[in-house]
């Protein structure tokens, strides 16, 4: 019969103080099939593992139960030990008598008897474990990077730099993301476009990178190493292969008064347009909803103006299906809709703007060519009030979390304003100044000390217009006094929030997200760039608010993970997969419908002469992730899940 070794760990005092391990050992020693039962202070230690290995060899054990901590903690450790001693690593179970027993119960006899029951039932389970082998799956060594902002670009460049193919998908007509909208960047005040543009160009010119702009990921199928992704590319109506980016068409386009999204409405654009001058690729798109031809069937001025016939009104959107081995999600963020703050007058007063508007005003390539002018009348403001945490750290109206970058960019704004406008008067309402980062605190100090930004600690309660001025009413909590500032412009440091469709997107590709819609990493501290779905990685602000240095370093980290995966041709996976008993399968296809991974296919059973006898379900072990939903569905009990078989669970329950 089975020869099971049971190893009871004291975990120092963690277990032994609440579970009488002596009684546990004695009780398990008397359990049928238990060949040897030992206790030790720390079985996870080297000598502890050695004890287990020795016992396996000396007693020819057929299975091992380690009564210790959670399998989430040390299953891998002891599986390795089993394998080293010549026992199939899957002939092991961990009886969790720490997290789920000694740590949560106070009465020693109760904890002891519970520990006995837990261990016994796992002995019964392990008796029925089967020797399993990890599953090998081939790896398609091509990566998909979703999102062409700085994080996506960085990840793509790093992966491509190591010689692996990358497809970079961006839903806007140009890559660049939010960084392309910024003016100068903290803490060095180098021009955002100047450092970003070379990266964008490098990406599009890289022989290993295929940039797909104006494109979206529609469907992700498959699993680590073997994703099949459907990417939909919208029609630009401009032939990418012909267009030289001369811009003649844009010049001629008669529809000129379209609010420019890139400039946040601070200027206008035409119906055929590139989002910004440095766009990559530098190929315009026709905004079908605004184009006169598409609306009325007449115009085609752009077509006439194009000397190389690059305009193509017949262009259709296209869908491509591409195989990938890994996916990096870098879909970025949006800024919170600040209109929820009615008291700040955003949307009501033209001169109440967001930080991003200010970036455009301060940008040399922006609508004012870098001059700080207020939107209402183009005057240079004399007094500017900056309101920090206009959305962040505000559970009642905004978001609970800190958006992390606002302290820094507000200081930068004050600085830029001071540099561009002599006699500037910046008043900054803040809650705390969070300036942790290399050169960050020095930077905010400079804003205060050199550029005379006036920091007022407190919340603003109301902004209203009076005599052509914006009256900002708030409290200076340090002085404990109400304050009122008459400003010419108010800049709100709005919160960074997930993309509006982040949750739907996460569901589409099968990754988790938090209550806000930021994507979940596998482990906040230890696996920050992986998701719970193997083979999908995260970087940038889609995971949490981040500044550029953080986004870039996370992008490189994600790229390193991808490259680690791509360093192998084959991938080993846990063999917890389902299998169908073909002789009893009735072919009702319920499992096929139930499988979340489309891992179950229909298979023909033929006799020796090749005649179709019946059709049965068949599990593709490469696709199966081992949830067991099919097993539960199957009425004839014809499917089973390795590692959690019906026999194992039955035995486990019947021993309770």
């Amino acid at each position: 019969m089975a020869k099971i070794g049971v190893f009871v760990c004291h975990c120092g005092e963690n277990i032994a103080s609440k579970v009488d391990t002596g009684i546990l050992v004695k009780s398990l020693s008397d359990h049928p099939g238990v060949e040897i039962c030992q206790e030790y202070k720390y079985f996870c230690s080297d000598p502890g593992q050695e004890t287990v290995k020795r016992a396996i060899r000396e007693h020819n054990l057929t299975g091992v139960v380690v009564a210790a901590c959670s399998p989430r903690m040390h299953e891998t450790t002891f599986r390795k030990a089993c394998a080293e001693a010549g026992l199939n690593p899957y002939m092991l179970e961990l009886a969790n008598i720490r997290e789920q027993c000694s740590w949560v119960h106070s009465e020693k006899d109760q904890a002891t008897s519970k520990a006995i029951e837990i261990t016994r039932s796992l002995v019964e389970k392990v008796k029925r474990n089967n020797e399993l082998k990890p599953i090998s799956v081939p790896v398609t060594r091509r990566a998909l990077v979703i999102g062409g902002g700085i994080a996506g670009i960085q990840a793509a460049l790093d992966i491509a730099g190591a010689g692996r193919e990358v497809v970079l998908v961006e839903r806007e007509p140009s890559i660049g993301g939010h960084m392309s909208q910024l003016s100068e960047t903290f803490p060095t005040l180098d021009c955002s476009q100047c450092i970003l543009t070379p990266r964008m160009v490098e990406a599009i010119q890289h022989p290993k990178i295929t940039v797909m702009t104006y494109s979206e990921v529609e469907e992700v199928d498959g699993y680590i190493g073997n994703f099949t992704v459907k990417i939909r590319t919208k029609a630009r109506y401009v032939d990418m292969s012909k267009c030289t980016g001369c811009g003649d068409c844009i010049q001629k386009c008669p529809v000129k008064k379209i609010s420019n999204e890139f400039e946040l409405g601070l200027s206008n654009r035409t119906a055929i347009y590139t989002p910004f001058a440095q766009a990559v690729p530098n190929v315009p798109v026709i905004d079908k909803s605004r184009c006169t031809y598409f609306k009325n069937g007449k115009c085609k001025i752009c077509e006439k103006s194009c000397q190389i016939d690059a305009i193509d009104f017949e262009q259709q959107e296209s869908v491509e299906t591409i195989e990938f081995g890994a996916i990096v999600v870098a879909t970025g963020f949006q800024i919170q809709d600040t209109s929820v703050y009615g008291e700040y007058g955003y949307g009501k007063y033209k001169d109440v703007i967001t930080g991003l508007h200010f970036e455009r005003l301060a940008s040399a390539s922006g609508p004012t060519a870098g001059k700080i002018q207020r939107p209402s009348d183009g005057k240079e403001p004399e007094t500017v009030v900056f309101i920090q945490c206009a959305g962040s750290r505000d559970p009642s109206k905004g978001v609970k979390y800190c958006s992390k970058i606002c302290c820094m960019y507000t200081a930068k704004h004050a600085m830029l304003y001071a540099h561009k406008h002599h006699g500037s008067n910046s008043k900054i309402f803040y809650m705390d100044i969070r300036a942790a980062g290399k050169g960050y605190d020095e930077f905010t100090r400079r804003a205060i000390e050199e550029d005379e930004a006036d920091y007022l600690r407190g919340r603003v309660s109301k902004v209203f217009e009076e005599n052509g001025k914006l009256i900002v009413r708030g409290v200076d909590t340090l002085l404990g006094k109400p304050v009122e500032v008459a400003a010419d412009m108010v800049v709100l440091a709005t919160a960074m929030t997930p993309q509006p469709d982040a949750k739907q997107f996460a569901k589409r590709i099968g990754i988790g997200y938090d209550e806000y819609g930021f994507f979940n990493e596998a482990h906040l501290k230890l696996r920050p760039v992986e998701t719970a779905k193997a083979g999908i990685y995260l970087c940038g602000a889609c995971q949490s608010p981040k500044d550029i240095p953080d986004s870039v370093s996370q992008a490189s980290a994600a790229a390193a993970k991808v490259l680690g995966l791509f360093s192998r041709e084959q991938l080993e996976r846990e063999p917890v997969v389902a299998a169908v008993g073909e002789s009893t399968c009735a072919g009702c296809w319920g499992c096929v419908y139930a499988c979340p991974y489309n891992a179950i296919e229909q298979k023909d059973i033929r006799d020796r002469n090749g005649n179709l006898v019946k059709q049965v379900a068949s599990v593709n072990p490469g696709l199966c992730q081992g949830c067991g939903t099919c097993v539960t569905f199957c009425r004839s009990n014809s499917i089973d899940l390795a590692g959690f078989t019906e026999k194992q669970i039955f035995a486990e329950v019947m021993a309770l």
Partner: protein
Amino acid sequence: MSEPFEPKIVAFVCTYCTYAGADLAGTSRLKYAPNVRIVRLPCTGRISPMFILKALQKGADSVLVSGCHPGDCHFTAGNYHARRRWTVFRALLAFTGIPEERIRFSWVSAAEGAKFAEMINEITDETRKLGPFTQYQELQKVIETQSSY
């Protein structure tokens, strides 16, 4: 006085959420009633109604079935399937007189150690109030003697 009744509770949980939540209760040293025995499954989708029947046969006074919150399933949809099965199975049990209070279903995430601990306490208390599930346990006892109708 006889010994106070200590209910036997069997819990079927998924490893990614509720099992992890129970671990969290442990690492947070939250104390809860020692009456629950956990059977770990990969996903709530793997939890078959048969498990519940067998747990009752083995003398469980209450059964808990628990997994990831909707939308959080590690396997994306196992818990949605499970929810449907539970809805139906629960109706069946109720109709055949197996009290609803004895079969409990919950969503407990990996972060909800406290919820897990509280819930176990609550189920234990409530089961203690309900008393042992003698009606079902009697069926098991009589099979020793039961033969003809």
